[in-house]
């Protein structure tokens, strides 16, 4: 039996849980914990420069690795700074444990210095939260936090730790709890067999089927099984923004991603489908457009681990509650030896889809000519080629994010890292930092915009401290491009506060931290700059590229329309 203080228990627990890196920022209420971390060297602490960055970095790690990220912040402002990152993780179902210092128990409720009811503040944006009431419960509560964060539909869990719970003078018995049980929490481990059978029968009878899969595939590690299932059936597949990479995008059966800025062929195929097999996706409003006009001829099979996602916005004909991986597995077994009922229908369906593909081929954007300012799309394509499609790619939020999703092709899951649900500007850079620190041998690219980057650029200092070699590609259009696009389309080009005045000289700014920064002003400079950027995998390089600010992201679904109602360029619509 071992006697440890609450603070030492936390450090020990993190070791025993196998946590390698935590992201945090110290302050009064967390100092006992920081001291305990100081006196050990197994768990590495990354000192960020803003608590929001700690959450995004831990989140990036979680998305890339599939394991929960860990954050440590102090009470009050430390905890409230973390809120945006917690909400970001919550919206995208990312496993994360956030340890928050809190004022001492006897001060709670007295508006003590740096007191915030962080459990209350974060209540709607966490999967669950705990407040430690006695030091002896620390190991079990922490185990529960990691268990809840990572299982079922994952999400962030907040643990509020009053300072007296970690006092060095009080020691209690520490045992690492290998397992915990929560009586009210029993995530399903498999889907209902009868429902799965029904779904398979419908798949075999379908004439115009489409798979529509989402982040749930990535979360449940179901990519391989999904690929096998889709290959076995020969159906087209489109993914959500969050599901990018969960089926190889360079494969002929992939239609790309769907929704507001999804591919023409994806949205057309969805609209005309007679069967939609949705797995680990949630019929989000950025996907469905107007639900009353959504896919009028389709029957819907909906597989999701979270029953509340099923029939929330669009009614499912065959709901299946279960983890994607096991349900898909069962589907594959049930398909053995069976054949499509209407064998002639599928090739016809593919002919229609190939027709849609051909309609848009070569018309997606107009590349720049020598001497001209670059188009953001072609920059993404060039980065795709130079990284051979193998990089971890994070993004911020805006036009550059959509272009990155459209023009970087992912063949593997966990590589496309973006804030989909919350759309958090400032996410990309700290997320890239978190990934690079945990996957040092990989190439990590952050596509950002001059607006977004300025929201979290203080992390350059963290990268300097820890030698983190991320590649930052700033698609600099000198404007809050996505806002401007909406203003062009809906406000007669009245650009209310979407122009970023007084941009810094990014080159000088980056150089002030001792990093390399390159500027690309036109077409002819791109290739050499990219060569230089990716020459050394361990070096942080910032590539500031002037791109055409007039470019819009297309396709773009027409508001209140159906899936198929899209603007295809500034002059064409469906």
């Amino acid at each position: 039996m071992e006697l440890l203080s609450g603070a030492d228990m936390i450090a020990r627990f993190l070791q025993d849980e196998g946590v390698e890196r935590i992201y945090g920022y110290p302050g009064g209420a967390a100092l006992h914990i920081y001291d305990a971390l100081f006196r050990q060297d197994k768990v590495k602490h990354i000192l960020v420069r803003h608590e929001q960055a700690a959450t995004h970095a831990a989140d990036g790690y979680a998305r890339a690795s599939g394991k929960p990220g860990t954050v440590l912040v102090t009470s009050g402002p430390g905890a409230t700074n973390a809120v945006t990152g917690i909400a970001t993780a919550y919206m995208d179902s990312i496993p994360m444990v956030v340890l928050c210092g809190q004022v001492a128990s006897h001060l709670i409720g007295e508006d003590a210095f740096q007191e915030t009811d962080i459990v209350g503040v974060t209540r709607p944006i966490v999967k669950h939260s705990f407040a430690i009431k006695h030091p002896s419960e620390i190991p079990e509560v922490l185990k529960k936090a990691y268990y809840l964060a990572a299982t079922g539909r994952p999400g962030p869990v907040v643990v509020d730790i009053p300072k007296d719970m970690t006092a060095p003078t009080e020691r209690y018995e520490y045992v690492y709890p290998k397992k915990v049980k929560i009586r009210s929490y029993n995530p399903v481990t498999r889907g209902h067999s009868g429902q799965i059978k029904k779904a398979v029968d419908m798949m075999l009878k379908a004439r115009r089927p489409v798979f529509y899969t989402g982040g749930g595939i990535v979360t449940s590690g179901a990519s391989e099984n999904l690929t096998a299932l889709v290959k076995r059936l020969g159906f087209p597949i489109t993914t959500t923004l969050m599901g990018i990479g969960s089926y190889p995008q360079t494969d002929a059966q992939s239609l790309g991603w769907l929704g507001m800025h999804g591919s023409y062929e994806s949205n057309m195929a969805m609209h005309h489908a007679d069967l939609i097999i949705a797995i680990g996706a949630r019929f989000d409003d950025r996907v469905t457009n107007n639900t009353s006009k959504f896919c009028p001829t389709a029957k819907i099979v909906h597989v999701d681990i979270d029953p509340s996602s099923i029939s929330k916005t669009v009614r499912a004909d065959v709901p299946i509650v279960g983890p994607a991986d096991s349900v898909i597995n069962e589907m594959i077994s049930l398909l053995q030896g069976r054949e499509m009922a209407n064998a002639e229908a599928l090739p016809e369906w593919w002919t229609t889809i190939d027709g849609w593909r051909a309609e848009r081929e070569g018309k997606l954007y107009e590349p720049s000519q020598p001497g001209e300012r670059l188009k953001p799309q072609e920059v993404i394509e060039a980065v795709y080629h130079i990284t051979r499609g193998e990089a971890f790619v994070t993004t911020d939020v805006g036009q550059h994010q959509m272009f990155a999703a459209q023009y970087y092709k992912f063949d593997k899951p966990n590589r496309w890292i973006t804030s989909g649900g919350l759309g958090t500007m400032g996410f990309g850079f700290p997320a890239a930092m978190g990934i690079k620190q945990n996957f040092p041998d990989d190439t990590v690219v952050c596509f950002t915009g001059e607006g977004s980057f300025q929201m979290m650029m203080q992390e350059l200092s963290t990268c300097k401290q820890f030698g983190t070699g991320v590649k930052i590609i700033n698609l600099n259009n000198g404007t809050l491009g996505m806002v401007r696009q909406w203003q062009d389309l809906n406000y007669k080009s009245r650009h209310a506060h979407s122009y970023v005045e007084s941009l810094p000289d990014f080159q000088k700014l980056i150089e002030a931290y001792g990093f390399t920064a390159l500027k690309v002003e036109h077409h002819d400079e791109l290739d050499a700059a990219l060569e230089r950027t990716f020459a050394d995998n361990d070096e942080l390089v910032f590539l500031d590229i002037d791109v055409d600010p007039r470019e819009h992201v297309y396709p773009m679904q027409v508001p209140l329309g159906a899936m198929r109602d899209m603007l295809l360029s500034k002059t064409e619509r469906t």
Partner: protein
Amino acid sequence: MRHIISILLENEPGALSRVVGLFSQRNFNIETLNVAPTEDPSLSRLTVTTEGDDRVIEQITKHLNKLIDVVKLVDLTEGHHIERELMLVKVKALGASRDEVKRTVDIFRAQIVDVTPSVYTVQITGDAGKLDAFVQAMAPIGILEVGRTGVSGISRGDKILSL
């Protein structure tokens, strides 16, 4: 349609606020809410009445079930059930109306539990409809104050909501 949902909830600090917060966060409405510990001190029983079509009620129960502190729940309105609410009402009881209050109390099988020269305090139990009817009957005489517990309910027969 009106639904009565009974929930077994961990008797933990913050658990109730998660339930209440869920309703406001998801734009569901709460008409009445009643909560107290059960025979098992680790559990509270919470009963909420809410209004909504099938889709809304389905979402409410699914989201409630997702809360880690919710151990079990039942939509009592799906089956036969008993519904009770207790109300304490202060009514003006002066002169001729003193008798009338007494008569109405008897008709509703309510009880007068406190008396002053000018006020009767009445206790009445029943389903929400009966309580509403009593309030209506008393309104012309003069209601001074009303305290209602909110609906509590339980299913009829052998069906049991327990761990």
